[in-house]
């Protein structure tokens, strides 16, 4: 798409107006998933497996159905089986055979919390009573939770017909390793042979949950002639429609999905869970059915991201040039294949310009909930390992860690080991901005340490649509199909359209269109909201402008080439001999009905040219040597965002991503007992950062515009969660003089590392 408007010409892009949905959200008016209700609605609840691994021998729902107030029950028998069939979903891939089993177990339950039945009843309390009356006969099987144990040949098998893909010849025994993948470039053995210093380490991270504060919630209404209306809190209403249609063998046109306000997603609301259950419960009961997950259900059965085991080997010459890089990434996929190990493998070393690289990835099933995307899926795990090793290598070479990265940094034209050459990127700019920041030179106290780490994420485009309707008074109704998952992207869309049309921001009212009013939109993931959504909105605005110019040419009886659009007016082209009285948007709009009909612009695009994002983070920590507690004292996040449309919300993305990364680094983890049951499915024992855990998070927005976007947008939401894990681990390692390789760096683990230190 044609670009790029110079910064000096911009009136609205880059400013900080109040967001259009703000008042609704500070007054309690905004309607989230659980806030939508219909007359006569029933409450749906799910019965979940108490076992991590068991064969389902029989399910008896007769007593539940007989309970007064129970209107419908569903089990595996109410859903058609699906063959293997793959589809894209955000940055990850789904297999419908697995999706139907994950939403309702068929042959086996594969994790504590796996759905086995669902009921719809006249109240929550009756629904809960009904769940107790469903009898499930289980044959309990041995289970496996840890990824390294799951990879062993003698481990309990989740899928008896799963043979490791990507291994030649095909293995003769099934395995929990669903897939092996490999990326390589150059000659790694020769590169290590040339190395004068080598660092080799093994790292482990625990699964963490996206932790959105709004649990999944949906409301379905199915009519007797098979029409479905579905309200749900989702990152992809078109994808949910497609998946429900597929899983229930319905035509897509029968299902209309209206996205509610979304109370946080971070990748965790890319996937359907209760939606097909609610639709079928509604079909069977002839009533609307509302299903809201409890927090415990959210923890046990949605999300989390993979835990990972990563082995890294890096070699360099004494003058600081990396000669070879190797990594093996072993990722928990949970109950079904499809972890983020592929993007993690592609991200692992892509901040560096390397001749010799080899990355091996394993996607491993184990008796945990099926993982979901979480903000730059997989990249933080890979970066934790690689950026820790980079830091250690820089230390061994006695080179400043930013200087060491600059010596090896990826730049425009750098060949990646997974495919393309990098285009215009701003990695070096973030490193230089970090090195120049006063934070980097500030003095440290005793038991304090400073860490640096960097992150890379691809960002994506994809199918996107938008409509710009010129209202009869010259104001604008903007409808877009990417969701406001980032909180603020609606404002950014309206800003870009106002900029194009040359009208005040307040005159554009942006709304998220439902699946009946816009063409297909891919899921809002991969930092594509403001990039691809913005591109569609700008394209639609430019089509509206072309139609406005054409209309004015007809009204003024001049050739359309003689009409330009500037500052909200159709006016004579500069230097043209053809003169006419300019017309404002409002003047054209008032006459539109009489001069050919209302004017609108549409865009249905497949956005290409997403700009990779890079960030460099600096953090200072203090370690309490007695308790092992770590306090984050100061944090600075530098990121190339391409261009910040609404800088306050871009800063917010960086601050929020960093806070999540700090939680991942210091406290958050799934804790399973020996029985394979999740022990901390609540916010009391799964501890996400609170306000008093964190300092202010300073942000530096570097703007190296993405040449493929009309305003230079790269997408900014995911990069900031990548670097914090390693930055904090590096800081703690410097404070203590001990390299810490296992997350989270919770007080007991840090205290143990201090106690175990060799004298």
């Amino acid at each position, binding site marked *: 798409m044609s670009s790029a408007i110079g910064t000096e010409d911009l009136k609205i892009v880059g400013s900080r107006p109040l967001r259009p949905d703000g008042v609704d959200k500070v*007054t*309690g008016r905004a309607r989230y998933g659980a806030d939508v209700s219909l007359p006569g609605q029933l409450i749906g609840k799910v019965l979940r497996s108490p076992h991590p691994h068991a064969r389902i021998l029989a399910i008896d729902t007769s007593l539940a159905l007989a309970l007064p107030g129970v209107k419908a029950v569903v089990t595996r028998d109410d859903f058609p089986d699906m063959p293997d069939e793959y589809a894209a979903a955000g940055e990850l891939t789904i297999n419908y055979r697995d999706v139907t089993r994950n939403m309702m177990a068929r042959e086996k339950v594969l994790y504590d919390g796996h759905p086995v039945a669902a009921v719809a009843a006249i109240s929550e309390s009756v629904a809960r009573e009904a769940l107790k009356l469903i009898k499930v006969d289980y044959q309990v099987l041995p289970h496996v939770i840890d990824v390294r144990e799951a990879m062993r040949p003698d481990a309990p098998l989740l899928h008896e017909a799963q043979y490791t893909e990507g291994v030649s010849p095909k293995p003769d025994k099934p395995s929990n390793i669903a897939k092996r993948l490999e990326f390589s470039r150059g000659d790694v053995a020769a590169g290590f042979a040339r190395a004068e210093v080598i660092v080799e380490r093994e790292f482990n991270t625990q699964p963490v949950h996206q932790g959105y504060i709004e649990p999944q919630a949906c409301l379905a209404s199915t009519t007797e002639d098979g029409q479905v209306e579905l309200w749900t809190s989702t990152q992809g209403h078109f994808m949910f429609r497609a998946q429900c249609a597929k899983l229930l063998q319905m035509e897509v046109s029968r299902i209309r999905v209206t996205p509610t306000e*979304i109370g946080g997603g971070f990748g965790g609301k890319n996937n359907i869970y209760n939606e097909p259950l609610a639709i079928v419960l509604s079909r069977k009961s002839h009533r609307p059915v509302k299903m809201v997950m409890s927090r415990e259900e959210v923890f046990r059965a949605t999300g989390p991201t993979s835990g990972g085991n990563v082995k890294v080997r890096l070699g360099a010459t004494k003058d600081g040039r990396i000669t070879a890089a190797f990594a093996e990434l072993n990722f928990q996929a949970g109950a079904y294949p499809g972890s983020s190990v592929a993007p993690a493998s592609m991200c692992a070393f892509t901040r560096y310009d390397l001749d010799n690289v080899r990355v091996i990835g394993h996607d491993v099933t184990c008796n945990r909930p099926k993982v979901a995307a979480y903000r730059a899926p997989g990249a933080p795990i890979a970066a934790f390992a690689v950026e820790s090793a980079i830091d250690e290598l820089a230390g061994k070479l006695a080179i400043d860690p930013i200087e060491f990265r600059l010596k090896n940094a990826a730049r425009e034209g750098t060949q990646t080991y997974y495919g393309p050459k990098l285009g215009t990127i701003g990695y070096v700019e973030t490193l230089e901005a970090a090195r120049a920041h006063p934070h980097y030179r500030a003095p440290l106290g005793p038991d304090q340490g400073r860490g640096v780490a960097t992150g890379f994420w691809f960002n994506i485009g994809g199918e996107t649509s938008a409509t710009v309707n010129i209202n009869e008074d010259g104001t604008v109704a903007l409808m877009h199909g990417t969701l406001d998952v980032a909180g603020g992207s609606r404002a950014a869309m309206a800003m870009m359209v106002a900029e194009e049309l040359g009208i005040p921001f307040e005159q554009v009212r942006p709304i998220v269109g439902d699946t009946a009013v816009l063409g297909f939109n891919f899921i809002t993931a991969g930092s594509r909201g403001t990039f691809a959504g913005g591109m569609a909105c700008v394209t639609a605005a430019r089509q509206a402008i072309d139609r406005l110019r054409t209309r004015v040419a007809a009204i003024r009886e001049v050739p359309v080439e003689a009409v330009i659009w500037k500052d909200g007016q159709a006016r004579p082209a500069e230097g043209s001999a053809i003169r006419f009285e300019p017309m404002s948007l409002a003047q054209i709009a008032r006459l539109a009905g009489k001069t050919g009909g209302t004017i609108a612009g549409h865009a249905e695009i497949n956005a290409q040219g997403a700009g990779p994002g890079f960030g460099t983070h600096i953090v200072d920590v203090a370690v309490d040597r007695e308790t092992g507690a770590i306090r984050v004292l100061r944090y600075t996040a530098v990121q190339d965002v391409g261009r910040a449309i609404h800088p306050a919300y871009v800063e917010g993305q960086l601050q*929020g991503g960093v*806070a999540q990364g700090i939680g991942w680094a210091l406290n958050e983890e799934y804790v399973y007992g020996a029985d394979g049951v999740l022990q901390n499915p609540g916010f009391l024992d799964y501890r996400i950062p609170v306000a008093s855990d964190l300092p202010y998070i300073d942000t530096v927005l570097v703007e190296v515009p993405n040449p493929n976007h009309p305003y230079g947008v790269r997408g900014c939401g995911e990069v900031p969660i990548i670097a914090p894990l390693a930055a904090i681990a590096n800081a703690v390692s410097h404070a203590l003089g001990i390299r810490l390789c296992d997350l989270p760096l919770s007080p007991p683990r840090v205290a143990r590392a201090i106690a175990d230190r060799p004298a």
Partner: protein
Amino acid sequence: MARHHVRATVNGDAVEFLCETGQTLLEALRDELRLTGTKEGCGTGDCGACSVMLDGRLVCSCLVLGVEAEGRSIETIEGMAVGEALHPLQQKFLEHAALQCGICTPGILIAARALLERNPDPTEAEVRDGLAGNLCRCTGYHKIVEAVLAAAREMRGA
């Protein structure tokens, strides 16, 4: 299941509702009175999204039974703005971009107002401690803390 008749005051209005013995005040507000501005994030008193004032005291409404509201006064997010005027905290949250998804915002605003009633001139650390019972997963709290401090300044006339 037997339901209890409860009379209470919500945002200054006399209200009546029926609720089951086990229903929480949060459920009564949301499902019986249709005041859905108060949110459920956890149901166990750990996230603060359901914060309301009960007889002038900050509580998690998911930890209070609906029947306990009998004869008592409840203030929710729906009563925070007066007429056309937003409360200074609401206004500063907008100006400082202190919300992203917004699901925690009603609870944080209620908790922040309670904090400023106790302590009109808090330090940054006091704001962070005062809001430590309210989880936000989007913002990293940076802009929330700035907005609360800015509202405190404005409310003091400083």
